[in-house]
């Protein structure tokens, strides 16, 4: 009997293996961004975004460790930050992370039907990833584009005015597209933080998306 009881259940997990995956460009970006603040610690959120890109769309313990090392913070401090914010992925996502808003307006405008349709179409439930690793399905809280309900975020783009019918087309479009991945989202966010980046262009949205803030309504 004694053998089946683990005596040291309070022993912490082993420290993550140290990795160094930040590219030269990533390090330059981090240093630029860190110079925007009087304290290096303030670059924690941006650094996690960079890490999420460098570690292919999510933050394994090694990514958190690398951010901690690069900012001179403790592992637990960075882990505390990473676990607070819902957009930092602690587990791997599918190539496309479908985040359907089911908050108030979207909910009354049929968001749950869109979710049901996606569940059926993809053969997964909310919170799961398809076997081929293509799609992860999530519910999101208000994405704050309620006028264009139902709204779904995929990577750095919002898909709007979704219905159970047209969402299928969106899925087909995504299957054939390299964009809109979690890493791409992280990349777009990092670029937004870097002065002068607008001249290089970026983001997987079209000029049309940027021009048409109120969706099809205005």
């Amino acid at each position: 009997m004694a053998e089946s009881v683990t005596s040291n259940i309070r022993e912490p997990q082993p420290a993550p293996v140290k990795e160094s995956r930040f590219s030269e460009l990533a390090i330059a970006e981090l240093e630029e961004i860190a110079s925007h603040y009087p304290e290096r610690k303030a670059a924690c959120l941006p650094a996690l975004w960079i890490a999420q890109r460098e570690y292919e769309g999510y933050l394994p313990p090694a990514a958190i460790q690398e951010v901690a090392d690069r900012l001179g913070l403790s592992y637990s401090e960075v882990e505390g930050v990473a676990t607070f914010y819902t957009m930092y992925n602690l587990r791997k996502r599918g190539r496309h992370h479908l985040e359907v808003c089911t908050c108030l307006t979207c909910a009354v405008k049929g968001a749950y039907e869109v979710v049901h349709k996606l569940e059926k179409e993809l053969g997964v439930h909310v919170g799961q990833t398809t076997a081929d690793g293509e799609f992860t399905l999530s519910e999101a809280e208000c994405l704050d584009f309620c006028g264009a309900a139902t709204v779904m975020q995929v990577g750095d783009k919002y898909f709007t005015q979704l219905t159970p019918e047209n969402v299928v087309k969106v899925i087909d479009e995504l299957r054939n597209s390299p964009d809109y991945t979690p890493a791409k989202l992280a990349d777009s966010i990092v670029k937004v933080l870097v002065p002068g980046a607008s001249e290089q262009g970026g983001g997987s949205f079209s000029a049309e998306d940027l021009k048409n803030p109120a969706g099809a309504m205005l």
Partner: protein
Amino acid sequence: MAIRNLLFEHRLVPGIEEIDVYEKHGGYEGLRKAVTLERQAVIDEVKTSGLRGRGGAGFPTWIKWNGLPKNTDKPHYIICNADEGEPGTYKDRELMLKLPHLLVEGMIIAGYAGLGTAGYIYIRGEYVEPAWQVRKAIDQAYKKGYLGKNILGIEGFNYDLYVHMGAGSYECGEESALMSSLMGERGNPRLKAPHAPLPVHEGVWKSPTLVNNVETYCAATWILKNGGAEYAKLGTERSKGTKIISVSGHIAKPANYEIEMGTPLLELLEAAGGVTGGKLKAVIPGGSSVQIVPADKLAGINLDYESCSANGTLLGSGGFMVFNDTTDIVLLMKRTSEFYMHESCGKCTPCREGTRWLFKILDRITSGSGREGDIEMLLDICSQIDGRSYCGLGDAAAWPIVGAIKAFREEFEYWIAHKRSPVGDHAVPPTPVVVNPLLTLTPA
């Protein structure tokens, strides 16, 4: 009254997000005027305008600006709250996407008046498209000499503007949590006055800090260009100028409408094309945190701070949600409480536990297991959260539930007695897809 496009005056001008087009339409004139004035005169102009914060609380803007120290013993930071997260609100999104220079100009004006060292625009992580436009606007403003060193040739007027992106947290819209987040921490709120110094004395990095909403800075630009007195001509006695209202829900023309303060609520409803898909049942005028108003109580409410609060609701951030008679108010409140449960930062017990209890009880009622006394229990929990939580999120979780019970008590009673929706099988929002939202809302 009704529609009055001040900030939105040029929103449909093609290319207005580019600095050249913006300048052709009077852009950066507000800043040029501001720098010919003494700093105090700029603040006085904002005072004359009567502008109140557009982030939800309606605090007089000039008092904050005036509260910053008049010396630069420490650096001063100017922060824009662009974390727009209130369900129902999407005005800041459109302002940034379409009129990013209006915001950038407003933040430079605030930097001038408030002796700013640097400004940060804190944008929610999901808003990549708007953030991209802001990035471009800032880059263009640097090129034209509106940002950087010796701005507009004024010796010693140095001011930098940065973008900071959030990462998914409603709570980071609360200004002290936003400051935590900007400094690289979890988005927990900080101790407030009278127990701690005001942000304008000690905010981020223990330095004087000004926090305003996107729309507030945009309005400041307009005010400096056209004069505070001109702005104050619009609106009511205590709610001056215009407010952008984001209309959504069962409505023919959902969009952002800039209205004169004091516009009758029903007039906006009409301008937005009226209710769709059934008869009008209720309106939430100011975002998910405010009390719902049943259709028969809408007449007589004007969209300004005083009229809304006199009628038992709030103007809030202007998230105007319209619901027709297929809407089940109890299910709606269940979804609302789910939002607050998910977004509670967990720092204080009344909100962390209370929001869960509210959700659990509403979930039990709407899955047909409601008990007698549940309504009283909801009200009791709300009264224990409201005013007893560490920041405004707790209050905001309690108010809508109390409001809904007040206005639609019979629907709660119906659910408990009959174990089904008073609206019928096709009620919206439908009963849930998700078994345990705590586990499934967003996979870690």
